[in-house]
């Protein structure tokens, strides 16, 4: 978070706010996002601007962390009775009600429930509404509308819960959900970032370099049939598809030479089996993200964003590593304006450096001496780039370990569940829903054993999904 005229991050701000307002829904199970006080950091929203106005007025900007920590509680207290968004509710009431003090459309809930759902067009706006869920579930997961007669039959069912469970199970096997270009493909697009012009394999582009179909198949496989979603980052197998209906996915394990023999050099996966780390080491990922880069920061940043929900460009997930950034490739990342992010990003990237894009050794493969191959001579510091790196403060020897740490992290579970939450519910959890969201991702790790389908069966029972 940033408060001064110059953009300086203050990631301590959410924790200070939550220390002061521990009972605020936005602080239950997490901390508020930057957007609680900012539009696009460092620009402030209406609430952030009010707080800034009360924050150690007269003190020179930028504030030190110490000054900021000292001044923020009083500044927050000073704006409690103000109404930043002019919606008629003071900031403190909005904080405690779980609404946004900078959003005029977000206001504390009205009290009371209707005597019957008839008054509300048949919607039970105060409770989980099975009829509403049944109808919505078919659209979200099956892509179909429940016919009037079937809806009527549902209304008189004794075991509505059971029918909802069965309907969801049917939908999760539908082509709309898991077929080619189905909903799961849509979820994968931002992670894979396909570009048909350089696609190889089926429907090749003008310059066929790699086939992202393998990435989609692997993604879908890890999300269905109670498979372990962590294998998205740890799989050392690949997946083939039998187009349907029903479309089916099955795994296979082949080394680079076997794969060249089986499928041809233009699509074969060339990283040796024990060096594979799911989506992180696919040919497409190396083609598209690593390309010609010795220290492929783009590849690491994309992995951090796509699978762990942390966008370094938005100053998310920063975790300084002492002594970093070392700047082995002499890009000037030790400059003051750069080091804040690169102290996290560079050590995050080192484990990716041994996987080649187009150069430094056999393309799209694991090359232990890639840094030597890419250096300009004995004195080039690039040669000293380590393979070991750091993720979430934990030292890892290589990318396989990196993937293990990543896939077992809270961040992976949160990001996975958040993807589906946003897809199905339509937006990120509201402050009042943080508790439900928090419980869901924790159960995804434990009770659901990283099964996306089990998690989804619980997601449709939440109030966020089921109360109209």
């Amino acid at each position: 978070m940033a408060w001064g005229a110059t953009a300086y991050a203050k990631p301590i701000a959410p924790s200070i706010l939550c220390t002061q307002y521990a009972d605020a829904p936005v602080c239950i199970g997490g901390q508020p996002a930057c957007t609680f006080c900012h539009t696009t950091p460092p620009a402030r929203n209406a609430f952030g601007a009010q707080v800034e106005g009360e924050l150690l007025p007269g003190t020179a900007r930028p504030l030190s962390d110490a000054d900021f920590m000292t001044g923020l509680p009083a500044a927050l207290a000073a704006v409690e009775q103000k109404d930043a968004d002019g919606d008629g509710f003071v900031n403190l009431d909005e904080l405690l009600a779980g609404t946004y003090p900078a959003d005029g459309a977000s206001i504390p809930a009205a009290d009371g429930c209707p005597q019957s759902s008839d008054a509300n067009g048949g919607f039970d706006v105060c409770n989980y509404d099975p009829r509403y869920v049944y109808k919505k579930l078919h659209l979200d997961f099956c892509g179909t509308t429940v016919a009037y007669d079937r809806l009527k039959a549902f209304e008189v069912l004794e075991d509505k819960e059971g029918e909802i469970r069965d309907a969801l199970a049917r939908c999760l096997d539908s082509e709309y959900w898991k077929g080619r270009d189905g909903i799961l493909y849509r979820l994968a697009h931002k992670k894979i970032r396909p570009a048909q012009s350089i696609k190889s394999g089926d429907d090749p582009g003008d310059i066929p370099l790699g086939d992202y179909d393998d990435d989609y198949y692997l993604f879908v496989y890890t999300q269905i049939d109670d498979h372990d979603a962590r294998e998205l980052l740890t799989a050392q197998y690949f997946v083939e598809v039998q187009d349907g209906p029903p479309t089916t996915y099955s795994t296979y394990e082949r080394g680079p030479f076997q794969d060249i023999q089986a499928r041809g050099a233009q699509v074969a996966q060339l990283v040796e089996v024990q060096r594979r780390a799911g989506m992180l080491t696919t040919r497409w990922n190396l083609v598209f993200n690593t390309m010609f880069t010795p220290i492929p920061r783009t590849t690491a940043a994309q992995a951090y964003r796509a699978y762990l929900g942390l966008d370094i460009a938005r100053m998310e997930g920063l975790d300084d590593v002492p002594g970093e950034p070392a700047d082995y490739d002499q890009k000037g990342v030790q400059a003051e304006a750069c080091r804040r992010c690169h102290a996290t990003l560079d050590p995050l990237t080192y484990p990716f450096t041994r996987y080649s894009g187009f150069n430094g050794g056999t393309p799209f493969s694991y090359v232990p001496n890639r840094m030597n191959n890419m250096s300009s001579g004995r004195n080039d510091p690039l040669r000293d780039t380590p393979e070991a790196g750091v993720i979430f403060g934990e030292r890892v020897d290589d990318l396989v370990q990196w993937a293990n740490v990543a896939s077992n992290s809270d961040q992976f579970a949160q990001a996975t569940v958040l993807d589906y939450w946003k897809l199905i519910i339509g937006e990120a959890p509201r402050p009042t829903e943080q508790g439900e969201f928090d419980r869901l991702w924790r159960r995804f790790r434990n009770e659901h054993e990283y099964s996306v389908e089990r998690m989804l069966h619980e997601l449709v029972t939440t109030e966020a999904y089921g109360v109209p």
Partner: protein
Amino acid sequence: MSRNPLNVAFALLFVTGCMADNVLKAEPPPDETPPVTMPPPTTNPPPAGDVVVPSNNARLKLKSGQLYAAALASGLELPRAEVCHELGLYDCVDDVHNIALGGIEPYRTGILEPLEETTVTTPIAADRVALAACTTRAERDFADLANAKLFGALVVKDGALEDVSAAPVEATIQRLYQRLVQRDATSDEVAALRDLYTEMAATPSADVAESWAAVSCYAVASTMEALFY
């Protein structure tokens, strides 16, 4: 049997005007029927002693073009591929209005997610899809009423409804609501579509019943209730 395009255009103006203001505001030409005040398209009032309570969890999603077209196809018993084509060639949802209707095109243009906001053309495209589907259904049904999928209950004589107050008309309106929004029509909604017919029939037309069927279908299919969930 083909419908008179001017009649459809008039009916559309009527319907959209009703939706906007509930009242036709334009001054009528001297010899025409004066404007009819329409009841607001609301549901029946809640039982005495009960009040509508706003949802604290209010959250609606706009159906994607894919979902909307599928809903129209199943509701109107049309093959999905025949719901709407521009120039008779290009699928309205998959090809022409894909992005405007919340679609994506990840492989060639890099549009990986639906646009966060709807575009200026989104309502026009949604209208286009609904009108095309409804027109097709009405044309096919009126070409062979005995085997009609949706409008077969109507009693039609010389292109007009024999009696707009007759039970088959209400039954047809109920079917429209059941097929397109999966609930029964309220008495207000039935009355509104009956009044629409009366207004349309005041202008001489050889196929007013078919035109009314198409725009009644369109009126229901383009409600907020049908477009959002």
